[in-house]
């Protein structure tokens, strides 16, 4: 009982972190059709910026400043990079973001070195939040969940209740019409790309000290967020949310299962399961759980 409860909480909090990571990716994709390979690199930048800022003025300012910085970089990348490449089509954009991921990684090597940096959970958030029977549940995991849920709600409100949200939604399907109505669609694109990067940056601030801040961290989460976006349905925020929680819980519970076949236990195969899910889904339901477009 204790074990099951703890595992459910672990699964949900990990799933929510995955959602923070993938929401930006899916937003950018739904609006611009760009599959951003550098998305996980923005996550890494968020963590490193947060490390730098929190060393100087503390964690709480970092929570705001780091995502803003990453968002600004995202906007600059869109304005001076992607927009130029855009006219050569999606393949060029894909290659551009692919190259960008390597550039960011090398830049991180140059600035912060190759060894993990000492980015820690702030003392106010360090310690147990509550105890389930005998297992402690850390405050920081609770904080992670809180931030993720707050983020989900505010994205949803921003997209459905604000003027800019409506313009974004309209630009999603009818960019020409929106432009004809006098809205600056390229600027909307820039804002969305920057916003997506900022969301990844925020996930970096939270994930960087929960786990480890080091140059390999982008490569470690890169593949899994693509799985989430594909499973949830390309461009669907709700789909990404469901897929994140699903994959978070799936991985958590798979670890606990010691039975298996052919000498391989389920727990051994746990990290591969999301990819298996993705392959199966692509075969049987190519548009994903909540996706709208086919194939």
């Amino acid at each position, binding site marked *: 009982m*204790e*074990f099951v409860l*703890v*595992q459910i909480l*672990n*699964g949900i*909090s*990990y799933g929510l972190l995955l959602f923070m990571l993938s929401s930006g990716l899916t937003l950018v994709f739904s609006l611009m059709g760009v599959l951003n390979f550098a998305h996980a690199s923005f996550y890494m930048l968020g963590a490193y910026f947060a490390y730098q800022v929190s060393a100087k003025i503390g964690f709480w300012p970092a929570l705001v400043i780091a995502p803003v910085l990453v968002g600004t970089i995202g906007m600059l990348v869109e304005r001076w990079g992607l927009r130029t490449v855009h006219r050569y089509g999606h393949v060029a954009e894909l290659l551009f973001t692919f190259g960008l991921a390597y550039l960011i990684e090398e830049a991180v*090597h140059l600035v912060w*070195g*190759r*060894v*993990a*940096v*000492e980015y*820690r959970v702030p003392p106010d958030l360090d310690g*147990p939040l509550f*105890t389930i029977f*005998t*297992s*402690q*549940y*850390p405050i*920081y*995991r609770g904080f992670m969940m809180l931030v993720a849920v707050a983020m989900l709600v505010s994205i949803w409100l921003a997209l459905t209740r604000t003027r800019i949200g409506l313009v974004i939604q309209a630009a999603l399907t009818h960019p020409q019409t929106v432009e004809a109505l006098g809205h600056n669609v390229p600027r909307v694109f820039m804002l969305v790309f920057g916003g997506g990067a900022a969301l990844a940056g925020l996930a970096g601030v939270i994930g960087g000290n929960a*786990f*480890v801040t*080091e*140059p*390999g961290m982008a*490569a*470690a*989460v890169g593949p899994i967020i693509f799985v989430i976006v594909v499973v949830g349905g390309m461009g669907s925020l709700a789909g990404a949310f469901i897929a994140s929680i699903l994959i978070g819980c799936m*991985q*958590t*519970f798979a*670890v*606990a299962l010691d039975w298996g076949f052919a000498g391989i*236990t389920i*727990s*051994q195969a*746990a*990290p*591969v399961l999301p990819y298996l899910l993705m392959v199966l889904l692509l075969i049987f339901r190519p548009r994903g759980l909540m996706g709208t477009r086919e194939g």
Partner: protein
Amino acid sequence: MRFPHFRSIALGGAVALLSFGVQAQTIKIAYIDPLSGPFANVGEQGLAEFRFALDRINAKGGVLGGRKLEVIGFDNKVSPQEALNQLKRVIDQGIRYITQGNSSAVAGALIDAVNRHNERNPGKEILYLNYAAVDPAYTNDKCSFWHFRFDANADMKMESLTTWMAGNKNIKKVYLINQDYSFGHAVKKAGRDYLARKRPDVQIVGDDLHPLGKVTDFAPYVAKIKASGADSVITGNWGNDMSLLVKAGRDAGLNVDWYTYYAGGLGTPTAMGEAAAGKVKIIAEYHSNVANNKAAKWDADFRKAHEKQKLDFYFLRGKIMWEMFAKAINEAKSAEPKAVALALEGMRHEGDLGEVEMRKQDHQLIQPLYVFTLQKSAAKGGPKEAKLDMEGSGLAPVTDARLEAYTSAQPTSCNMKRP
């Protein structure tokens, strides 16, 4: 306009010729290890230490009365395939010595390739100096004349570790968690077998394998360990797999002792932080606060020379490896790999912490090992032996026990084919 051009080309040519002349004298060693990607920090550390060691040897006059030693980095991205590509480049460049350590999977591929190359190209043999890949197979059924291992293998470390654990009566329930590849499997098997032999009363309450370098969230594994009621965990994990595991354990309030191979450096102490104090034990051939340390000055000099990169001195076995290598070249009076290999076989050497021997039978270095615990450093209120901390993390190693070389020496099934 033409003249200066011509001159600079001629000058360049002359310089190239000159440097060629110098390089023909230099004995080159190819360092085939990760220099990019997730394990780049591990590779960079080794390269920095080896450069430092070879510079010292060169400063004392090199080998064979004035020939210099030089180590050159080849990035294998911890991939066996990429390592073989790099080996091809090494052979093309006429380099006759290679050294590698990270990942036993890579080591296996290199041993096979070196054996094949040497069989087909007599007179152009390659010699492989292994400083860290510890799958026991490479000095047992897969042993090779062309391979020398300077690190204690996984079984030897487990032998020493369990010898020490056997004396600790507080250990009642043990959990094993390891990376799912040849090395992790070796640790798992040795851990189970040796504990069953030395402490049959100890219960193995769990045994997990997880993929190498792919797990970001260890909380589910920690919940499983907690549910098993274990008081001690044995793990061969290295890199992030090590630090994330201990961090997740602390977050969940898991109260166990960690018995590890690789928690003692390469970024792991920084990542674990003070969560590890008093809880993490390590089996290795060296740490900075070891008693009667003849390498203390070397350690301090290395730290000082790499202050900016925040590197500690980690590979004592690397220092010993290069000293023995230089000695072997001088004894053989030749830089030919075959002659050097014959001189290395059976060599005894006064190491900084006691005598070591390169066993002739299987080319395995037999050396004393230490069990030590990470404690808060003396500066942060820890015990006074905890003088030097690791990576400025506030965690400092303190010896629990020294295990003499004979403790870890294992029988070998090696049946070596000698040329």
